[in-house]
């Protein structure tokens, strides 16, 4: 008996692996998505190995060599108004952006999945939860994040909290939609009749069916989270100087646009490339996972 179960498990595992390979193959067939994957991989590598990739520290000032142009004096991308190495600040900025992006999307997903499952499965909770979600949707764009920062104060941690909360309603809507369609299916009814607990049905049978739209949502959301973090820091509501955060770096660079335009140009290119990569990979994933996926959030 146990060997049969073992075989079944093995089969299931190889089927899953096969499915992953197919998805990946479909994904890289899309040229833009393939470029996006390469960019994301490079940014991850730059972020992880940031201290080893640069011979200067991101905070290391050299007042004898300020606002150097790219390539001067062993500084690949030049220096800023305090003589800090721009390349070092750029790769350390990648670190910050990815950490903030990943953590806020992860927290947002947990909250959104929880609320979405409850709303979709329990009709009694649906009305209440979805009204709260509607309410959160009433704050356009970055405004909800700003309101939360107005409440908590300006810091990078609060930016993570703000973007997490801002990610919840979109995620909850997607999960709820999937749950509503899945829970009508007969195998769920059969599970119920067999006496499976709600928790088991929700986590083991309904949630895995929401994975595809959630992966796409999370990828796209990374783009939004990174863009918003830099926007908030640019406005002075997120990371504060001298933190090497891309948005804060652009804000500082704008004052030196006449003498040292590279101070504002370089971090902006970093943001643009990263956001572009996550956007195209998200698009590609949507096509690879399910061309008819409804992502109207």
């Amino acid at each position, binding site marked *: 008996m146990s060997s049969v179960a073992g075989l079944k498990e093995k089969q299931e595992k190889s089927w899953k692996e096969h499915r992953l390979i197919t998805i990946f193959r479909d994904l890289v067939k899309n040229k*833009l998505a393939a470029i996006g994957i390469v960019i994301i991989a490079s940014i991850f590598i730059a972020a992880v190995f940031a201290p080893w990739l640069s011979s200067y520290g991101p905070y290391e000032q050299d007042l004898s060599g300020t606002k150097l142009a790219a390539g001067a004096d062993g500084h690949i991308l030049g220096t800023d108004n305090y003589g800090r190495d721009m390349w070092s600040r750029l790769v350390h900025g990648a670190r910050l952006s990815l950490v903030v992006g990943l953590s806020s999307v992860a927290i947002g997903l947990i909250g959104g999945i929880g609320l979405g499952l409850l709303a979709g499965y329990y009709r009694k909770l649906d009305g209440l939860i979805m*009204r709260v979600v*509607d*309410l959160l949707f*009433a*704050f*356009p*764009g*970055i*405004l909800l994040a*700003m*309101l*939360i*920062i*107005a*409440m*908590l*104060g*300006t810091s990078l941690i609060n930016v993570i909290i703000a973007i997490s909360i801002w990610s919840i309603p979109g995620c909850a809507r997607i999960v709820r939609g999937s749950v509503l369609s899945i829970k009508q299916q007969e195998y769920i009814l059969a599970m119920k009749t067999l006496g499976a607990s709600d928790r088991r049905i929700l986590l083991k049978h309904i949630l895995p069916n929401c994975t595809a739209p959630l992966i796409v949502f999370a990828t796209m959301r990374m*783009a939004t989270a990174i*863009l918003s973090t*830099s*926007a908030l820091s*640019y*406005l*002075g*509501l997120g990371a504060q100087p001298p933190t090497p955060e891309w*948005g804060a770096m*652009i804000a500082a*660079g*704008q004052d030196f*646009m*006449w003498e040292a*335009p590279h101070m*504002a*140009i370089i*971090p*902006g290119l970093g*943001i*643009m490339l990263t*956001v*572009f990569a996550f*956007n*195209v990979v998200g698009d590609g994933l949507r096509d690879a996972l399910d061309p008819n996926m409804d992502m109207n959030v």
Partner: protein
Amino acid sequence: MVGLIIRRFLQLLLLLFGISFLVFMSMHLAPGDPATIIGGPNATASDLEAIRENLGLNRPVVVQYFDYLAGVLQGDFGYSYQTNQAVTEAIITRFPATIKLATASMIVAIIIGIVAGMISARKQNSWIDVTSTTFALAGVSIPNFWLGAMLILIFSVNLQILPVGGLNSPFYTVEGMKELILPAITLGTASAALIARMTRSSMLEVIRSDYIRTARAKGVRKHSLIWIHALKNAMIPVITVIGINFGGLLGGTIITEQVFAINGVGRLMIDAIAARDFPIVQGTVLLVAGIFVVVNLVVDIIYALIDPRISY
């Protein structure tokens, strides 16, 4: 139709009520005592008590909320902690600049977006199509504050043909127009990109539908086929995108105002957040969210008017 409007209107009122409650509560739960912000560092305990008494801060929260709500309904949003100016007055003086910016950007976005999307769809897979779709993709990825800074760098610093910032002259003068160009492009680009993508895919879908083939078979001229028969149906999803985008645009105004040093509601809000001037934050957030939900309602109604198949 009338039923739809009434129902949506009631929902709108509930939503506005919810927004005001959420905003009020989040400002109320924020750490930091308003009395110490108003009183300054040298205020004594009795001074602080007097300020609290004066502003009614020692009453129960719910009472304070309904008091605030009653004020808001009469156009009274309270007074700034910093300057003691009426919030309503502060908003009214800043509002025209924001509206000017948002409207100009929306016009830029709609014109560029729809034209680019239509051309892309007509000449699918041509170099024009490839260029415009690539730009559309890049457009949503560019941080608008950076785009603004780059436009300033090119047109104001290097070419010196457009002003660096500010929105001081009336928009119908040449100076006013010049001041609006860069901010409107900065803010409108992301929306233009989304509108172009939507127009393209929607148009491609409609062009292949049966009724267009029938119309062509009947001998309708190509020009009117595209711009009248197809466009009307293709516009339905585009209008939704424009509506949804208006929210992003309002949020973006806040950032763009900062880039070009435009004295609008957005800058008022940012300064107030940094200074923890809660009445101003409350007033500006309420205003922006309020406009957003009202615009959404209008979009829904336009939607129903264009497409009679839709019922809510």
